[in-house]
């Protein structure tokens, strides 16, 4: 029977040398490397199962740049896979293009708004470092990418069984619109759940005097504003059947997303499509 304060090595019988060796603390710090590698590789899984632990580690400054890279790699892989399925109905070439473009869109948007996020966080007194702001945004992106990854089988099934790249003009338009709506719904779910995670993370990390709602709304607006324009530049994603397959449209820099909305979409809606 082991008593309080008695070490594990003291309990083993005389012949249990191996157990003694295991219980002895390591002489060198080398095993820490293994622990660190393991931690980095499972960080996305930790975010899925035990976000509290992740936010605590981030709050205590225990996560480094390599961990950040681990999250970015996960975002690239997950969004790349979803992108490949997203455009799969149109052609394998567009599928490959979108597998490259979707991670560029996600990480590119984070990169463009990174400085703004850090500045607003600093001005509002959150006490977050530049690296912490990147971590928070990438963590919420990772949650969104988990959602996308989990819906890859569903999306693939819809693409494989629901839409056909053949038929009349109207049938093609119907197929394109239905697959477009499916993807919009899926991306909206992923975005919503990612932002819920972002808000909860911010609430845990920022200082008590920081207006967390304002910070969250500012970040959200900046992300959406830049994300819409970047997705406009990088289009096509779903792939209209009436345009040739291309990595980017030739007129991608001619106008911006908001010009398109205000000069074409809004007048169309106001006049009832006339």
């Amino acid at each position, binding site marked *: 029977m082991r008593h309080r304060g008695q070490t594990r090595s003291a309990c083993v019988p005389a012949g249990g040398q191996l157990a003694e060796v295991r219980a002895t603390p390591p002489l060198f710090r080398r095993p820490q490397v293994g622990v660190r590698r393991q931690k980095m590789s499972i960080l996305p899984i930790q975010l*899925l199962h035990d976000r509290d632990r992740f936010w605590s580690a981030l709050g205590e400054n225990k996560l480094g740049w390599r961990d950040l890279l681990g999250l970015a790699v996960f975002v690239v892989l997950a969004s790349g896979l979803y992108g490949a399925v997203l455009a799969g109905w149109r052609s394998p070439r567009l599928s490959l293009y979108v597998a490259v473009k979707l991670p560029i869109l996600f990480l590119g948007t984070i990169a463009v708004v990174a400085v703004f996020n850090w500045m607003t966080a600093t001005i509002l007194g959150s006490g977050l470092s530049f690296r912490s702001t990147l971590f928070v945004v990438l963590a919420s992106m990772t949650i969104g990418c988990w959602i996308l*990854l*989990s819906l890859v089988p*569903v999306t693939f*099934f819809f693409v494989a069984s629901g839409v056909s790249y053949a038929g009349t003009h109207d049938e093609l338009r119907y197929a394109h619109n*239905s697959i477009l709506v499916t993807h919009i719904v899926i991306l909206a779910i992923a975005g919503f759940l990612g932002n819920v995670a972002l808000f909860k993370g911010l609430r845990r990390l920022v200082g008590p005097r920081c207006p967390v709602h304002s910070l969250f709304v500012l970040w959200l607006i900046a992300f959406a504003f830049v994300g819409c324009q970047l997705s406009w530049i990088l289009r096509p994603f779903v792939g209209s059947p009436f345009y040739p397959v291309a990595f980017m449209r030739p007129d991608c820099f001619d106008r911006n997303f908001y010009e398109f909305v205000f000069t074409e979409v809004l007048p169309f809606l106001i006049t009832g499509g006339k």
Partner: protein
Amino acid sequence: MTGQEDDRQSTPPPPVPAEIAAHGAENVVTALLKAPDRVADAIAASSKSLLGPACALLAVAVVSHAVFGLAIGLFAGWSVAIMDLVKAPLVAVCSLLLCFPSLYVFACVAGSPLSISQTLALGCSCLAMVGLLLIGLAPVAWLFAVSTESLPFIVVLALLIWLVAVCFASRYVGKLRANPLFQKQGGIKMWFLILIVVTLQMATCMRPMLAKPEKGWWTGEKKFFLSHFGSTFEAKEVSVEQEESSAD
């Protein structure tokens, strides 16, 4: 001995997973219908050895879906009923398979960190619950199936019965809240919407299910489920117009 202690002694302990598997379908059905909190405890108690109970739950789901398929398939005769005997469980199981990753991720994201084994058991229990409700409503489906010739009516009826069953399955998940593992259910409830949409598309993919097949049990044509349901009602409108013109 106090009254509370008496109660504690008279309350049967929650069945461990192995027990559920050992007693087979009967115990599973009783637990699902009468004490869902015991199922929750059994799932939460073990994170690894749940394959047996999951198989028992899946067997219940397959059999009950098959019975419902047979009942509703009688609308178009015995050949379609036999076809639906196979297709109805296939639709349910394939939908669950496709939605399994999303159940796991949605539950975890919402704050219920289930293991893969627990997710499997939860998914199978939901499908078994849907199946039990379907088997309860199978006589109703049979009665209307043999007494109508309207395809849109039977489509709407089947859809309604199935949605009622899914609502009860969702309610069953709500009762699992008694266990701390299932306290946060937002993700699982959202997952039900995905399961509904996927099952509708799966049924479209495995058509025809309520009409005599022309070239065999399967069709190669790709179709979105909304388009397919729309065409069912369009066919009805055309036939009504034809009847009116012949009456003139």
